[in-house]
């Protein structure tokens, strides 16, 4: 008889411990007894898969049995969790069938989590024995764990939205109500075209998003053209512009716009006094939302288009010119067709970002609602209509996913530009005169506006009342950030400290998980072959296109009640950060991996190293830039996020952004803006420090990712 392999034995033991020694229900409070001692008969069958697994590894290895047993264990775990919840049977037909409300159980806890992990790993082992993932247990296990996590924290919640949309508020199945809500004129009405009433919220959203997409693309293009095709020294400016939106929570721009152009805004007052123009509320609504979003998202478009434009080989334009084409003709017939797919891409990105933006419409939208704010009010407002929230979320999701699918499949095949644009000698053609003047004409006012906005963010909180009374004051700063000496020594008495510290704490906790999840996923996608790889890639990247508001609603619907109950905890906030920001890690990892020749992994494998060692010793040291990027981004994006977490915060776990939006909502602009300024400065400090330590010069890039270090500067592992 062969000695049984260690891996499955260990995980059978851990699974058994989960049933025998770890509290099955509850995560931090109200912990229960372990599964087998909780007096819950439907948990007893969970022991069976472990016994069968044991049989499958002792003696002749029987991977089939192992696969069946562990899959059965998982299935049973999920089924009992979905069918039996805190108020009895979940489904009406079960109540009818059994004639009673059925047994009850609270939400699953640590025991269930450990048991699920053990089953997943046993399943991975069994599959690997059957040749899955080339028989590599580590790869199979990583793959299954990542897929399981994405399924639990991205797809299960989104499915919960769908499920909740087809039910009435009492939980009964009500497809007619769903249809009524889905087709409601409040969503789809086109009345504004005839001028009678406002249009439905879906059309409002689409119109603003399309407008923002077009404007950001044009501005981004103007910037890219000026940066690459004129002699204007743009490097430092571009750098600043690419960093600022990353460290600025998006709604801060809306806030600054109100302080500049609102009824009592600085510029409004100034112009009003100068020309005697009556002050108006024009900024609230479409103009404000559009300007704020264009300010916020143009840098992204700029980075995309810089990449696209760099990819147009100068030799092509030179060829055109030697063929007697004029500059204008060259631009129109060579450059323009080559960058057109890039423009469409940039438009779609702007479109998706605008649709997903929640905080700017909230702050500056006035009476003009878009889908994301409507969802929010449906959940927290007086009506408290979760069904309506779910329907709106479905509509929003449909729009963003359509744009995402278009971006990936339709554009994916149409990009001629080779990003990076290596190996093409030649000097890019300068811009035709008229175009150059047009670019400057667009950029200069826009830059002035940006400067005004950021100036307002920095100083707005240090005057009594912007516009009306510009006397400097530290009042707001002290209210938010005072430190006092009390009986017990120094303490942070300012009103902002609590949310600030909680934010940093949760962002730091989420950071390593986000990066690990992203980089591991990238590694699976780029370096491993397994059935369904393309689907996996699509689904992993898709979570990027799910608007935060949708995720927020989904998490409330999914994790408020058993089988998994997490709302009200800091954990759920950290989880939402991890899965919202994971795609950043995936992108950074993919970009970095594509620069590492595959023969390095293969050399390691032929030298007898297993995939885990190869990943740790060979790839990870070279993936350092991607790891740093993923860490930094997951932190910064967590700190600036607002849309998903606004649904998830509680009194105990309040976050900086949510606190600021709350202040702005009740008109306390002083504190809101002072806090925003501090947040922006803090993040800038973090980036500077990281740059100092890591020496990584291009952290600020959002779209493309820095190349790997020269080998000589890379760390050699001990």
């Amino acid at each position, binding site marked *: 008889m062969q000695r049984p392999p260690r891996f499955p034995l260990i995980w059978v033991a851990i699974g058994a411990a989960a049933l025998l020694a770890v509290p099955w229900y509850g995560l931090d409070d109200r912990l229960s007894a372990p599964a087998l001692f909780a007096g819950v008969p439907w948990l007893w069958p969970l022991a069976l898969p472990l016994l069968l697994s044991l049989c499958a590894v002792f003696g002749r290895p029987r991977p089939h049995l192992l696969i069946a047993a562990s899959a059965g264990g998982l299935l049973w775990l999920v089924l009992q969790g979905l069918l039996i919840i805190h108020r009895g049977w979940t489904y009406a037909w079960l109540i009818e069938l059994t004639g009673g409300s059925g047994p009850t159980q609270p939400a699953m806890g640590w025991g269930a989590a450990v048991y699920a992990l053990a089953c997943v790993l046993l399943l991975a082992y069994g599959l690997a024995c059957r040749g899955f993932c080339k028989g590599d247990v580590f790869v199979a296990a990583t793959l299954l764990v990542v897929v399981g996590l994405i399924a639990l924290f991205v797809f299960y919640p989104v499915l919960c939205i769908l499920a909740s949309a087809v039910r009435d508020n009492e939980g009964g199945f009500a497809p007619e109500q769903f249809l009524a809500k889905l087709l409601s004129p409040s969503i789809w009405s086109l009345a504004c075209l005839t001028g009678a009433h406002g249009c439905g919220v879906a059309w409002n959203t689409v119109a603003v998003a399309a407008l923002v997409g077009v404007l950001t693309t044009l501005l981004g293009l103007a910037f890219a053209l000026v940066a690459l095709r004129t002699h204007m020294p743009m490097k430092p400016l571009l750098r600043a512009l690419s960093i600022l939106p990353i460290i600025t929570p998006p709604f801060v721009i809306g806030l600054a716009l109100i302080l500049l152009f609102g009824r009592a805004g600085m510029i409004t007052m100034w112009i009003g006094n100068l020309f005697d123009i009556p002050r108006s509320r024009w900024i609230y609504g479409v103009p404000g939302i559009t300007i704020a979003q264009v300010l916020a998202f143009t840098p992204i478009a700029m980075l995309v288009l810089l990449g696209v434009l760099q990819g147009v080989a100068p030799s092509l334009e030179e060829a055109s010119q030697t063929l007697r084409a004029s500059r204008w003709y060259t631009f129109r017939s060579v450059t323009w067709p080559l960058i057109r797919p890039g423009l469409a891409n940039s438009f779609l990105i702007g479109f998706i970002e605008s649709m997903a933006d929640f905080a700017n419409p909230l702050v500056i939208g006035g009476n003009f609602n878009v889908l994301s704010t409507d969802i929010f009010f449906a959940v927290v407002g007086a009506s408290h209509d979760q069904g309506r929230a779910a329907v709106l979320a479905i509509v929003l999701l449909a729009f963003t996913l359509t744009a995402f699918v278009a971006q990936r499949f339709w554009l994916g095949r149409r990009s001629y530009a080779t990003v990076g644009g290596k190996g093409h000698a030649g000097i890019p053609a300068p811009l035709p005169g008229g175009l150059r003047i047009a670019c400057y004409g667009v950029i200069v006012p826009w830059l002035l506006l940006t400067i005004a906005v950021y100036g307002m963010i920095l100083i707005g909180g240090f005057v009594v009342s912007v516009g009306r009374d510009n006397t400097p004051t530290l009042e707001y700063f002290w209210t938010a950030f005072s430190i006092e000496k009390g009986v017990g020594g120094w303490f942070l008495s300012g009103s902002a400290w609590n949310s600030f510290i909680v934010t940093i704490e949760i962002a730091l906790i989420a950071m390593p998980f986000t990066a690990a999840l992203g980089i591991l996923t990238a590694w699976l996608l780029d370096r491993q072959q397994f059935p369904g790889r393309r689907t996996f890639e699509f689904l992993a990247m898709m979570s990027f296109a799910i608007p935060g508001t949708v995720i927020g609603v989904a998490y409330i619907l999914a994790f408020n009640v058993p089988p998994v109950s997490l709302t009200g905890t800091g954990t759920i906030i950290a989880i939402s950060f991890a899965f919202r920001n994971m795609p950043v890690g995936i992108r950074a990892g993919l970009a970095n991996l594509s620069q590492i020749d595959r023969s390095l992994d293969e050399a390691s494998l032929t030298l007898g190293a297993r995939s885990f060692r190869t990943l740790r010793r060979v790839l990870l040291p070279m993936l350092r830039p991607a790891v740093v990027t993923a860490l930094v981004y997951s932190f910064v994006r967590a700190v600036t996020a607002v849309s998903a977490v606004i649904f998830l915060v509680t009194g105990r776990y309040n976050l900086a952004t949510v606190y600021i939006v709350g202040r702005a909502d009740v008109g306390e602009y002083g504190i809101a803006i002072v806090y925003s300024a501090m947040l922006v400065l803090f993040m800038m400090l973090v980036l500077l420090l990281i740059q100092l330590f890591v020496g990584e010069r291009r952290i600020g890039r959002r779209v493309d990712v820095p190349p790997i270090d020269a080998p*000589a500067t890379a760390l050699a592992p001990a």
Partner: protein
Amino acid sequence: MTIRAVEFRAVSKRYGAVTALETISLAIDRGTLVTLLGPSGCGKTTMLRLIAGLEQASTGQIMVEGKDVTLLSATERDVSMVFQSYALFPHMTVLENVCYGLRASGIRKSRAVELAQAKLSLVGLSGYGARLPSELSGGQQQRVAVARAIVLEPKVLLFDEPLSNLDAKLRRHVREEIHELQRSLSLTVIYVTHDQQEALAISDRIIVMSMARVAQDGTPRGLYEQPNSHFVADFIGDANIVPVVIEGRQNELASVRLGPLQLTLPHHGAVAGPAELSIRPQAVLLSRGTSGLSGRVERAAYLGSHMEYWITIAGLDKELFVIAQDVMAPLGVGDEVSLTFGRTGVALVPREHLELG
């Protein structure tokens, strides 16, 4: 039965609709240097990767040292590979690179360093252990890659076009070094190249591949002197392929008519009727007499060590390419010459049984 170092039993490899290898069966003896030779895309790298375990065969069985390894991963096979790009880990020193495989197989660090140093000095790089790969020249990197592979004392050592990143001068030198190393350590080496000179120079045996199949398998001399197909004749060395007629066969010999000339050659399975003759450029003897085929010099080129001529022959619609050693009294363009053939370098090629690539 002796145990072979590597054996393929009806192995095929497909990537979707592309067939990279089509039902290959062959065996490679221990301690020999075997070259896989063929044009780009014919499946050489695929074959090597199948042996290394970097790809899984679609059908068939692969044996290494008598053991079925078809389902084993690269990690589990006792086979090392020197990559075309060398694949040295850029973030590890030379010594760390060479130690890597030893450490991965659980050998103590001090022992690993000792073994690695020994192999580094074997390839002439003792004292370079602390450098990073980026601080070495191409030839030195190549030697590190070799040291890293042989330190594990693999059953089979694979080279995928190891010289393609070196400049022409260095190539001959490194080629001889590899050959020398293989002989002194009695390694089983499988060596991929698309350069026929390289293959002829170092191989015990050459496997010529074409379009996912083995075109011919034999010693360098055998392949050069007796190619079994148009493809092989053309691929190994230059050859003039001319149509001939086999008029009769007797024992091992066939009588062949080429224009007015009657030749007697080993038939190697060719049957009576139309056939092809492969004529090496050196095998054509030119004279001003009238004893052989009469031809006319169309072009001539002086190459220092020899002359190259293109000759037209009446009744043959192809020019013959001829190399002549006499550079002192060269022929001129337009000269009438008489052609005869030497004893070696002329061979009958059986009717094409292989699609031409």
